[in-house]
């Protein structure tokens, strides 16, 4: 009996046991590595947008995966609620002042970063809310310096991390600047009103009149400046025209100089006479054309008769040719031509 058939049961048993054993080892190792047998603690946070978010996304702290995103949904308050879990061995990292940040890195994907609070407290209970980075609560915690900002150490993340605070500060800086300008403007207006109010009597009236006069004077000066600017432009145009006139090769001397239009007008009537003769010859030609037209008009019936006779002659010719073609006696066809040898024979046509 063949070895394989004789020990079939053992071979199959080994085949099955090895495969199942390997599968079990892989499952146990995988489960241990990915924390399947570890208790997990669920928390949630809210962000303004789900861009870059996905279920199963890792929750990281200093580059370590401490949990994963379970899911997310749009709330009635128009926010995105993210539910995530943290593994039991990392529970101590989640304290009262913790903040989570949703980051999206191109090509690499996104992650949910956990930033711990400065004050070490007991871990917060399951199902608690952890503020997100951009939420009012998270911003307040950061501004109060109660959060340890921990970011991944790759170059792309560092650049994004450096840009983020700058972009965050620019709108606030602009807002502050606008508020400062508005405040200064209001203060100056108030001061002006108060100073004017305190000045009473002739001096006050004089100052008030002087202020009005100064304002009117400003307006007048502005109008005068505009008028002067117009005058200046006009003067420049006039100066440019005068320069053109003075130029020996300018447009005016070219119009009036030798070979110009003035020479045509100073030919003692020769051009006029030529034009007059030309018109007289054209009149004679038109008269002859008129006479020819009238003659053709009188000859039209005769031309029509000629055309009619020609058409009848063509019909007769057509009938004759048709008769000849249909008559078997007179139809001889084209006689066959006998090929005549060419009298000239070239050197190349010589036969050997």
């Amino acid at each position, binding site marked *: 009996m063949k070895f394989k058939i004789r020990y079939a049961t053992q071979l*199959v048993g080994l085949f099955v046991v090895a495969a*199942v054993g390997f599968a079990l080892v892989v499952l146990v190792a995988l489960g241990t590595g990915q924390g399947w047998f570890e208790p997990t603690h669920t928390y949630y946070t809210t962000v303004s947008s789900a861009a870059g978010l996905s279920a199963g996304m890792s929750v990281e702290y200093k580059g370590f995966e401490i949990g994963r995103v379970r899911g997310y949904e749009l709330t009635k308050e128009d926010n995105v609620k993210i539910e995530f879990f943290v593994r039991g061995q990392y529970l101590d990292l989640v304290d009262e002042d913790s903040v989570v940040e949703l980051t999206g890195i191109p090509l690499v994907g996104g992650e949910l970063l956990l930033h711990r609070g400065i004050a070490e407290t007991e871990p917060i209970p399951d199902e608690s809310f952890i503020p997100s980075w951009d939420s009012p609560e998270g911003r307040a915690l950061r501004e109060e310096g109660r959060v340890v900002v921990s970011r991944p150490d790759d170059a792309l993340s560092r650049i994004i991390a450096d840009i983020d605070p700058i972009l965050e500060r620019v709108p606030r800086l602009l807002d502050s600047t606008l508020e400062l300008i508005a405040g200064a403007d209001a203060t100056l207006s108030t001061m002006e009103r108060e100073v004017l109010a305190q000045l009473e009597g002739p001096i006050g009236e004089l100052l008030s009149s002087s202020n009005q006069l100064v304002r009117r004077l400003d307006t007048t000066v502005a109008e005068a400046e505009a008028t002067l600017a117009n005058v200046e432009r006009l003067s420049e145009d006039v100066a440019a025209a005068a320069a053109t006139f003075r130029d020996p090769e300018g447009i005016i001397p070219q119009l009036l100089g030798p070979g110009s239009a003035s020479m045509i007008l100073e030919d003692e009537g020769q051009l006029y006479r030529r034009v007059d003769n030309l018109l007289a010859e054209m009149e004679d030609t038109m008269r002859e054309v008129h006479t020819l037209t009238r003659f053709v008009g009188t000859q039209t019936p005769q031309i029509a008769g000629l055309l009619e006779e020609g058409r009848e002659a063509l019909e007769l010719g057509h009938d004759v040719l048709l008769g000849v073609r249909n008559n078997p006696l007179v139809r001889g066809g084209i006689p066959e031509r006998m090929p005549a040898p060419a009298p000239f024979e070239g050197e190349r046509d010589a036969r050997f």
Partner: protein
Amino acid sequence: MVSGIGRAVNERISNLLYALGFAVEVFRAIPEYLSSGRTRARILVAQVLFTGVEALAVVAALSAAIGAVIIIQGFNLLPALGQEQLIFVILIAVITREFGPILTAFIVVARSGTAITTELGHNVVSHEIEAYLATGINPISFLVVPRLLGVTISVVLLNIYFNVFGLLGSYAVSQFVSPIAFDVYVYGLFDAVTLTDLFTSVTKSLVFGVIIALVATYHGFAVARAATEIPQRAIRSVGHGVVLCILANTVITLVSYL
């Protein structure tokens, strides 16, 4: 022409319904088979031996070669994109999720599917099926169920071996292309694989095993009386088995990403 098309459609529907009825009958016979004696268990062992153990060498060679090709291509292409770490994700996606189940199924279809169809076809031609019926033995329970279980178990186990040899083969080749420590390699694989990957892979193997066994036994019993029908049925068994496995693979892959 229209009546011809109508007849063809009717015949197809009739065959499909018959095949579904056959499948239901096979599944109903499984408890009867499991409660039977040692004789029928030996048929199952023999089936696993022929389908699984004997195909192990082919599967190991094929999977090691595919793993090697993936690792070579990955180490050539991915560094240009700065994504070397994706090699483990690609290995898992290609070997565990896709190639493992489907290539194993193709090998089993080609080797065992044709063998089962031919064997059952010969049984029909030599009137052995009528003899079983005459002696009160249910041919479905005695002939089909052990083959169904044997092929299904073999495909699942061969898929596990395909993964083992594919991932080990890729590691072996990586030592020539870009040497990496074994524990780092294993850690990278464990980091990339998910429970969904494993579940999808095993589900595919189970479904493919059932398809291959049902198609092969169906075509074996479809032989009417002449021995010349046997090779024709064997060819159709391979064609139908491959097509159905590809369709099932597509459906399971789609469902796994939902």
